[in-house]
């Protein structure tokens, strides 16, 4: 453990912007990807459900 205080840890030896920027950006990208995939899955399921309900009603559908 080389950190004597929280402020020293956050300062990253003067490279705070670069180090925290890299880690923060990586985290942000991961969160965005997971969230975007959740959205895509919801959309895909909704689409299948819609097609199903159309064919249940005996409707011809065109895409």
């Amino acid at each position, binding site marked *: 453990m080389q950190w004597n205080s929280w402020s020293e840890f956050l300062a990253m030896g003067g490279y705070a912007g670069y*180090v925290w920027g*890299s*880690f923060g950006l990586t985290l942000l990208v991961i969160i965005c*990807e997971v969230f975007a*995939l959740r959205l895509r*899955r919801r959309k895909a399921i909704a689409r299948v459900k819609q097609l199903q309900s159309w064919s249940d009603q005996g409707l011809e559908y065109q895409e």
Partner: protein
Amino acid sequence: MSAINWFKYAAPQTFYPLAGRLIPWLYVIATLLALAGIYISFVIAPTDFQQGEAYRIIFVHVPAAWMSMVIYLAMAFWAAIGLVFNTRLSSMMAQALAPTGALFTLLALVTGSLWGRPTWGTWWVWDARLTSELILLFLYIGFIALRASIDSPQRADRATAVLAIVGAVNVPIIYFSVRWWNTLHQGASINMSSAPKMAVTMLTGMLIMALASWVYSIAVTFVRVRCIILERERHAGWVRQLEEVKS
């Protein structure tokens, strides 16, 4: 016997529930590994003798750069399998890998830039390593764009497969660029022929972060391939019978 099994798992309707069962576990493992990796990166790994704390960017930069290349090779592999055997799932796998690979390439480039500025003194140079990694990003974007531009999924599978396979030559170029040419980018700290040029705790942190990236990549690829299956097989009877669709 084994061939029969392989083709059984190559069917989307077998793979879909299997991947669904694995995904939560993969997410948990990836999170635990990432937490352990971050702890080592910031608490256990010591300061570097020449770069001070700036070197800690290595813990995200190197795993991202590795994944950018590994995912491309996996993508080209599945695309080639899909092209040769005409297996639907293989092409879907290739399609599912591309966005994650592109994101890791982008992360490798941006974190590299954030690392280069304080250490080298520049955000960007056109040396062989950086240029070939940028070409990799364009290959991913080209792969995704080509698919988007072709309406028929089967034709898109074939066209993108050719692009993925041809582009694969760029991966060894990226990897060996620092040996073949004079570059500003330093050589590899880890290679097959010599001992790692890193202190053990630093190396451990980097490898655990790399492992976390692997598991994460598999998890999100499985999630995406399930989305693709739902999108492309939406007319199939088994899709209509799925629990998530009926409820």
